[in-house]
């Protein structure tokens, strides 16, 4: 069996796809992950177009207690979302992938905020775009994150 040009093309395309596959969740949230905000956003967005809006990120404007800050992310139709706290020691806070049984593309939880910062949420849409939401939060008592 000889390797045709088509075979070579297909193999290289697959290799490229595997290489471009998203980072595994465990690696993303490892304490050794010192990725900056720009690097995280670039890794999540890839070659897709990035636009502000389309993600509703709900946080209190003033967080009295940085150990427990309620946060809600909603991005109707999104495949997955990523929550980033640029002022925390480990920037990625939460990733959510919505499956076929999801009733909405929304998730609420409680997060730690080490200091006053602009919290970022990114959402990958099925048509290819990435939406970004931003919410500044004033933190009174920083939660060691």
């Amino acid at each position: 069996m000889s390797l045709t040009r088509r075979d070579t093309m297909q193999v290289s395309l697959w290799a490229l796809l595997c290489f471009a596959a998203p980072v595994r969740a465990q690696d993303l949230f490892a304490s050794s992950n010192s990725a900056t905000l720009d690097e995280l956003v670039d890794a999540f967005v890839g070659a897709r177009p990035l636009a502000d809006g389309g993600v509703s990120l709900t946080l209190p404007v003033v967080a009295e207690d940085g150990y427990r800050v309620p946060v809600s992310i909603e991005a109707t139709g999104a495949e997955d979302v990523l929550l980033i706290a640029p002022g925390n020691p480990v920037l990625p806070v939460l990733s959510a992938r919505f499956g076929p049984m999801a009733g909405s593309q929304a998730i609420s939880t409680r997060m730690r905020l080490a200091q006053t910062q602009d919290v970022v949420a990114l959402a990958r849409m099925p048509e290819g775009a990435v939406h970004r939401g931003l919410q500044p939060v004033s933190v009174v008592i920083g939660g060691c994150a």
Partner: protein
Amino acid sequence: MASGVKTRVKLPKQARAGEVITIKTLISHRMESGHRLDPSGQPVPRSIIHRFLCTFEGETVIDLGIGPGISTNPFFKFQAIVPGPGVFTFAWFDDDGAIYTDSRSITVI
């Protein structure tokens, strides 16, 4: 962290076919971030729940990757579709390799 872990799940016992329900989950866990120092100045090793998975009859509802930025006793609220009667399963994955699971069946009216 195998001791003192308790899971709690709240969802309706029954729903109409095709209805969207809200699910609330909580697991009691320290969520030690790995950035704190003990009184002797040594870093306390990280010990967190790093993943949460909810499925309905084998189909994914939501799959969460969790970092040390999530608070102690991780709480999650999300929504699921109930296509028919079945069982929701919930799994929390601990850094120490433990997997805590819970399940709830739902009937359709």
